[in-house]
């Protein structure tokens, strides 16, 4: 049976003053994920090891952590591949966020910024008679941003977030982009105003860490650039949206 050495950052606030790295020797097969390794440590070695996880197939977003310097979902990170990089595999919690215990971080600022952009669709009060007709290109533009699983990897990788928690963050800006570009949304002006302040889309310094970190291959940077362009022609965009909404209204409402 092959084994691998992993180093895990441990921190128990009741007993530790500072975090420390503990070494464990875990069983290794070609299928072992880093999450498997953490589970093995918790069951066989130290039941106090604390970490978040749920679905274990990269859809819930709970298990985002920092492995060998990169933010990843540990449920889909191959341990063998990490070992193959020649260094001991180091597992730390997501950076730039306060550590609650071991690998669990406080994501309050992540959620606050998320709620700040009103991440839900605000459609017109009257739905059209049949459906909201949209062009395939309009739907395609939203496709990418819709698959965000809110894992926090991008937010926690962003150096601007590292410098100041006032920054809205790539996750919320991606969501704002999703809603702004949705032709059914009635609040584009308000949304663009919210993200064009000093801590919004113009605070992004195009470092690209969000793209590198995203386990779903999303592109918050491109979304932020689009928001920047739209924010600079906000009134025109709002007018176009009003026209679009009135077209649907004219088509007659649902019975």
């Amino acid at each position: 049976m092959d084994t691998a050495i992993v180093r895990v950052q441990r921190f128990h606030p009741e007993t530790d003053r500072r975090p420390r790295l503990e070494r464990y020797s875990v069983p290794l097969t070609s299928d072992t994920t880093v999450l498997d390794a953490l589970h093995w440590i918790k069951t066989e070695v130290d039941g106090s090891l604390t970490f978040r996880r749920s679905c274990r197939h990269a859809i819930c977003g709970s298990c985002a952590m920092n492995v060998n310097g990169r933010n990843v979902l540990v449920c889909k990170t191959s341990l063998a591949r990490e070992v193959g990089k020649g260094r001991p595999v180091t597992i730390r919690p997501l950076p730039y966020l306060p550590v609650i215990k071991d690998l669990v971080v406080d994501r309050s600022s992540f959620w606050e910024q998320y709620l700040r952009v009103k991440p839900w669709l605000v459609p017109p009060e009257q739905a059209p008679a049949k459906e909201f007709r949209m062009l395939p290109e309009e739907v395609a533009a939203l496709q990418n941003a819709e698959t965000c699983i809110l894992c926090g990897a991008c937010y926690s990788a962003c150096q601007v977030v590292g410098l100041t928690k006032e920054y809205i963050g790539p996750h919320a800006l991606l969501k704002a982009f999703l809603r702004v570009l949705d032709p059914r949304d009635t609040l584009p002006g308000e949304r663009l105003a919210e993200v064009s302040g000093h801590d919004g889309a113009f605070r992004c310094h195009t470092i690209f860490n969000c793209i590198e970190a995203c386990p779903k291959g999303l592109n918050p940077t491109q979304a932020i650039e689009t928001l920047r362009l739209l924010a600079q022609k906000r009134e025109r965009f709002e007018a176009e949206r009003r026209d679009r909404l009135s077209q649907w209204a004219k088509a007659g409402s649902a019975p």
Partner: protein
Amino acid sequence: MRWFQLQRLSAVALVIFLTVHMVVLHYPPFHIDFSRIIERMAQPLWKAIDIAFLFFVLLHALTGTYAVLTDLQAVARFRRILAGSAIGLGVAGFIYGAATILAFHPPA
């Protein structure tokens, strides 16, 4: 948003002005002293170019410094003071610099 736009605008302007500056001044011969600049600086055209250059440089330098400072959470609370200082420094610097450029004349 305005800071961002100003920074980008001044960046584009500087690319042009800097190229002109480098070509005019720093092409060989490399030795620079008073006599080398004396004729150029007396001409109104070059005074105008240098004043515009100064304007965009100050704009870019101050918006850049403002961005660097306000990114730090500790400093962000003083955003308004920093903004005011940046504008103040810019205006003062520009007036002083433009006056100096305009005042330059070859000694008799």
